[in-house]
């Protein structure tokens, strides 16, 4: 069940690296979102035809509560093109047209004795905070490896540090944490993990997700990826967001956005999302 809401913007914060956090009043969505799910969002405009025409998919980054009840969702976005530029203009008092929650989120076993490795690149971080929070609530063992171009791009880092979990950061310019890519950070933990009890959850640029998937496959570590695909509707009717899995074409919006990395066919899925992120 998804909700269609005109959600008032309660707060808008800008961060370095063209990142923006929007907190919007949407209690129905806030109450029903699972980790890894997303919304379709647009800034409510005054023209009869929205420009850009289509909403944009955004992960639910965090959920705020009021008097104990979920009341607001947080969206964390990076300005890339038309859609995100438009959304980044949102000010308190403006409204977002929202549809959500959408998609299937991450999957994990509530039982203990497992190790959870979250790997995020850049704005991919937006898809994994709810997961980390939930896992920590369950008292599970969670590690985050978070990479970005530079230290100032590591938006949201404190939200994870707050969870009292193991966090490794990597930056391409070496300005914070390890100098290198998330895969370098992963290598650091790699020898210590038990393939049988570890799960990887990955969200970020495709080359990064592909590299991590490959590492996981080599050691048969279970691995879930959250992919970014161009979407027109977000709820399974346009059939525009298909990706290739070993089974067949799958819709990223309803079957995904989280897929089993081992069944994902990168080569044939590329065209769907290679232009979503700016080069």
């Amino acid at each position: 069940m998804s909700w269609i809401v005109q959600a008032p913007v309660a707060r808008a914060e800008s961060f370095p690296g063209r990142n923006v956090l929007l907190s919007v009043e949407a209690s129905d969505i806030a109450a029903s979102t699972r980790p890894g799910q997303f919304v379709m969002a647009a800034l409510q405009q005054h023209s009869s035809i929205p420009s850009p025409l289509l909403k944009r998919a955004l992960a639910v980054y965090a959920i705020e509560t009021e008097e104990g009840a979920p009341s607001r969702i947080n969206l964390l976005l990076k300005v890339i093109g038309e859609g995100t530029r438009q959304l980044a203009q949102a000010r308190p008092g403006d409204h977002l047209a929202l549809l959500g929650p959408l998609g299937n989120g991450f999957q994990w076993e509530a039982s203990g004795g497992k190790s959870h490795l979250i790997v995020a690149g850049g704005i991919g971080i937006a898809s994994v905070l709810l997961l980390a929070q939930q896992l920590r609530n369950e008292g599970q063992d969670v590690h985050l490896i978070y990479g970005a171009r530079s230290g100032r791009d590591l938006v949201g880092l404190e939200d994870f540090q707050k969870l009292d979990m193991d966090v490794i950061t990597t930056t391409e310019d070496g300005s914070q944490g390890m100098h290198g890519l998330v895969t370098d950070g992963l290598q650091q933990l790699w020898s210590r993990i038990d393939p049988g009890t570890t799960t990887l959850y990955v969200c970020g640029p495709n080359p990064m997700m592909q590299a991590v998937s490959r590492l996981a496959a080599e050691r048969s570590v279970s691995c879930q990826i959250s992919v970014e695909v161009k979407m027109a509707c977000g709820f399974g009717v346009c059939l525009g967001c298909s990706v290739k899995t070993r089974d067949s074409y799958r819709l990223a919006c309803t079957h995904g956005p989280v897929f089993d990395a081992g069944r994902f066919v990168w080569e044939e899925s590329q065209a769907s999302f290679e232009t979503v992120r700016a080069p």
Partner: protein
Amino acid sequence: MSSKTEKHPETGTADLSVEVGSLQLKNPVLAASGTFGYGLEFQQFFDLDRLGGFCTKGLSLQPMKGAAPGRIQETPAGMLNAIGLENVGVDGFIRDKLPLLGDCGTHVIANVLGKSIQEFVTIAERLEPYPEVSGLELNISCPNISEGGIHFGHDPEMTFQVVQAVRGSTRKPLWVKLSPNVTDITVFARACEEAGADAISLVNTFVGMSIDVHKRRPMLSNVTGGLSGPAIRPLAVRLVHQTAQAVRVPVVGIGGISHSRDALEFLIAGASAIQIGTANFYDPLVSLKVIDGLADYCRQQKLPGIRHLIGTLQIREGQFFYT
């Protein structure tokens, strides 16, 4: 048709009912094929009985897996798509979707697509026993598959033959959806009329293309795709008007409708009903808003019923025309 027709007093005072041939619609607003799934996906948002009807995703004889990823691209006030007609197939539709729709209280129009005349006929025959399917809409105009589709839609003789063949094998209302990518649409509309079509649906999408300038590659895996959305509305209104002048069978207007004002343009131009496509993606409630807007218009203009608006465009003498 359901008994729920009278449920909505806010539109109840204006008579929005129209006829498309023998088919009575409670209002002139349908959802367009390929933008409304099999109806089920929208039941979470509203009661389907609000609609005049809806057209299913194009059904082929066998299920189709569709085009490779890279199927959509946004464009100014529009979008390109090359879905490649992914669908569950006519049997899958009958088996898995139709029962779930149940008595949904509105007209279900099955949009169908064959690779040959025989396939079109077979699909029509499979659907014939199901009263839940109110009518057929032949898609002879899809620009995104290499066989069938547009091959029929760009040859008046083929158009005639396929329509005639299906006409002979179904008693359901038969609509034919035309390609706008032709020099003279009226030739095709007349071929359909002569072959026994009950209505002409137009337009399907316009062939377009978008290029990734960094990679120097087409944005769509299919290279070209169909353009839809508000961008094409003026083109569609003109084709609907031209066609309504050329044939006696009703015309169902489609193309870029996202507001009651847009729908009114088509009705005034001569459409007996309209379909909403792309707007369902960015505003799933758009159909309801359009229906309410039509009712408001009737009240404001003191129209006894929306049907009195159809084809009422006034053209002054001496004005140029389709030169």
